[in-house]
């Protein structure tokens, strides 16, 4: 009889990415994981948070994910999940809850508050996998590490005294295991984790790592199966492997192997623009476009540094992007958020309140702004003059700042959020129907 085994994945972030191609690649990676799980004959699968990129993702994406998970379930492989910081919902109205109710998978977080208010404890419930007898218990990940409050009052004795092969499923960064160069906000100290589990199935860290810690056991973060941010893809291009873990076990963990998932090739190129002219940077980019083999590849470009002359807007990023797409690239992403210019001088302003400082900054910036002489359309010139110059400009900028500061509401999808912000911006700019 073969040794029982399970798969552990996390941070699939289904539904992430604006670009259709990247969304599809992400889904492809997820499908590949699920199929490989069937192929290698795992007994169950753990998804330790951020299965979806939002608590209510786009339905088409959910449908695709649900289909592949149903294939897995039909093979008798159960899936156990916990919320991550992205797909968490305080009101249990996340897509995770919907699919949990539909029986597609089992959410392994259930808790009751016990003890007096002065010494409140959180007793977590174990879920037993009927096939293997493994006991799973989990805790959510929440935005900004809010789950730390839960860890502080977990009834540790209850968890630690439970016999058998136990897995703790969580979606938090353990302070002591934070990978180098990865900045996370709130982290959970190892000492808040219950001891004595055979396996700790972690999520939230976007790099795969596995450690054995005395007194605890194997703690593993598989990292994303594809990635949900430019940085993720950049890391992938720089050698970080994406995939999931397969764990063979009997009474103890016997073997942990990392199954790599590679759904596309990624080309990453960094350009240092320090002390260069905008023209020089443009030439370097064009030279790269001419030389790179980007067919069916994701191309990531990062331009950073402080230009010696010219402005970032002088570099034809759109043109570079189009050229690469024309050359066969699947997706092109150019990051130039860390590109600055000597011509963009820093301003020092004094003010007592944030509002005052903002006003002074806007005023300073607008004082040097004039209508571009190449704009000849009188209608456009009138609009700019009426809405963007002088006091009107200051007022427009302030109102723009206000509408751009709004945050996404809970349960509001990214698309709805974007449309709402866009609508508000159009109102401010008075360009709704123009």
């Amino acid at each position, binding site marked *: 009889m073969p040794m029982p085994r399970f798969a552990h994945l996390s941070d699939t972030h289904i539904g992430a990415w604006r670009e259709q191609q990247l969304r599809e690649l992400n889904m492809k990676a997820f499908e590949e994981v699920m199929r490989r799980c069937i192929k290698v004959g795992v007994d169950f699968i753990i998804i330790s948070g951020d299965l979806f990129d939002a608590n209510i993702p786009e339905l088409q994406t959910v449908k695709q994910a649900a289909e592949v998970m149903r294939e897995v379930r039909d093979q008798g492989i159960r899936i156990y999940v916990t919320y991550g910081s992205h797909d968490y919902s*305080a*009101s*249990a109205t996340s897509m995770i809850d919907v699919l949990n109710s539909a029986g597609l998978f089992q959410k392994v977080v259930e*808790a*009751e*508050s016990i003890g007096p*208010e*002065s010494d*409140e404890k*959180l007793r977590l419930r174990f879920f037993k996998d009927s096939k293997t007898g493994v006991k799973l218990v989990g805790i959510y990940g929440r935005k900004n590490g809010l789950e730390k*409050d*839960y860890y*502080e*009052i977990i009834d*540790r004795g209850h968890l630690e005294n439970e016999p058998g092969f136990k897995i703790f499923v969580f979606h938090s960064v353990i*302070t*002591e*295991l*934070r*990978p*180098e160069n990865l900045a996370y906000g709130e982290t959970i*100290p*190892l*000492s*808040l984790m219950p001891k004595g589990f055979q396996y700790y199935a972690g999520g939230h860290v976007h790099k795969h*790592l596995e*450690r054995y*810690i*005395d007194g605890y056991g194997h703690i593993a973060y598989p990292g994303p199966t594809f990635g949900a941010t430019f940085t993720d893809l950049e890391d992938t291009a720089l050698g970080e492997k994406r995939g999931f873990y397969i764990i063979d076990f009997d009474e103890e963990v016997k073997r942990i192997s990392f199954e790599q998932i590679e759904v596309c090739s990624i080309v990453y190129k960094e350009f240092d623009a320090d002390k260069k002219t905008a023209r020089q940077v443009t030439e370097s980019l064009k030279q790269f476009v001419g030389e790179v083999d980007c067919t069916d590849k994701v191309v990531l470009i990062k331009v950073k540094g402080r230009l010696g002359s010219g402005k970032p807007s002088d570099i034809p990023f759109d043109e570079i992007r189009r050229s690469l797409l024309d050359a066969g690239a699947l997706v092109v992403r150019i990051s130039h958020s860390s590109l600055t210019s000597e011509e963009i001088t820093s301003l020092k302003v004094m003010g007592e309140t944030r509002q005052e400082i903002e006003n002074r900054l806007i005023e300073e910036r607008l004082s040097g702004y004039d209508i571009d002489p190449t704009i000849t359309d009188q209608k456009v010139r009138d609009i700019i003059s009426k809405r963007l110059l002088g006091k009107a400009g200051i007022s427009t900028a302030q109102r723009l700042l206000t509408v751009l500061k709004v945050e996404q509401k809970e349960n509001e999808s990214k698309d709805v959020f974007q449309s709402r912000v866009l609508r508000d911006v159009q109102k401010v700019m008075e360009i709704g129907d123009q």
Partner: protein
Amino acid sequence: MGSEITVVGSVVMGSHGAILVRQRSGCSIELGDLLVIDNGDGSRHILQVYDLVYGSQLSQKNLELLSGMKLEGFTEDLGLIDPSLRNYVLVKVKSVANITSYGIRIPKTLPTFMSEVRAIKEEDLKFTKPPKPIFLGKVRSGSKTLNIDVFLDGDKMFRHHVLIPATTGRGKSNLVKVMLWSALGQAHFGILVLDPHDEYFGRHEKGLKDHPKAKGNLIYYSPTPPPGANTLIINLKSIEPSHFDGIVAFTQAQEEAVDAYYNRFGQEWIRQIIKGESIDTVSPKTITVLRRKLEYILGVYLDQTGKIQCRSGVFSDSAGQHTVRDIVSSLERGKIVVIDTSRLLDQAELLIGSIVANSIFRLYQQYKSEGTLEDKPVINIIIEEAPRVLGIDVLQRVGDNIYSIIAREGRKFKVGLTAITQLTSVIPREILANMNTKIILGNELESERKAIISSASQDLSTDDKNIASLDIGEAIVSSNFTKFAIPIQIPDFNELASIAQPQRKKEKTGFV
């Protein structure tokens, strides 16, 4: 103390710094007592007793004869006429402060001859509370405690180093806990505490963890942390060859080997040495010895699968990559970081301190060069058994280390040391002179008292007996930031912690 003025003596003779007061009969003046002379113009002299001797109107021979007659039974009712007039106690005092309407001044005049001397009252000493006060205790007059709080300006005190000299059992740890308790409430100072006895956090008893602001301002690292505290795991990559400077004695060949490995492998240098990776330019014998040395100090070894393990769990080649950065960041945000080093070898403890101290010192040097240092909180590193790193023999044998560098140069960069020691005499005078606050506890060793007295901020040349007679919890604060050496009674930390307002229980967490 009551408001009634009680005359306890009268000035009879002496000189500046050595005034002789005749004690009034029925009064009992103690060593260390604070006495007062009202000058008549609203100002007053504060005197401190440093010695007590007998005085008599009778000659020594007559006294001896009188005593003999009584002892040998020559007469039954032998006595003196007006004995309280003829025999008395002479009290040696020094004027420690002159209180005027302008504040406390260093005394430069003698009190009037035959002045009446009275016991001190609480209203005689009013200290202005400094801006970032560190509470040390209450003013003590002999063995009596006055209800006058003694604070030092934490910024100045911690920046300009603190020395706490005392022999065992005189209350060093209690004092440090009291100081840290005071600092914890403020978040103005970044204090690193290397705790070889795991006694400050209060894992099983009252400790800093019981402070109402401990949750926000106290960070505790231990190889075996209680729930919620941090596990002390230092990644081997955080260790640089320079961290061993002055902590571990390497031979010339070993030093060269360390440099060669660091140059070749960078942050991986220890890992490669432990794994037995060879370098052509380094002899296998040197590597073997070096490897053994590192294995011993760090407690690391290769297991059967070829993975690096650590006996104490403190050093790792895979975890703890952010630990040093986190500690430094906490210090920079004015937190108190206590590191439980009770399970480590001396050298490993000092090495951890060295890693953190180096990082924070470099960072603060950088802040100074950028001109942003003044916005940063003062950092202080508390180290027990300071001669391990500040002792003359260590500095001569192994050379300077980060602690001695901080002791000499740290104040320029807002980084100070608090050195706790039983042996002041083995610390170089140059370093002692840099320690601008000394909180002197009882010490029965004359040689140590001499070293303390000779390096104090005020003239304590007459205080040898005072220091020798200090009981548990009694201390003298000699600091560049006080006008005179203040005798204090340090409160019992357990009592201090017991009366603290408990941390308010937050609302029910509610699992949603």
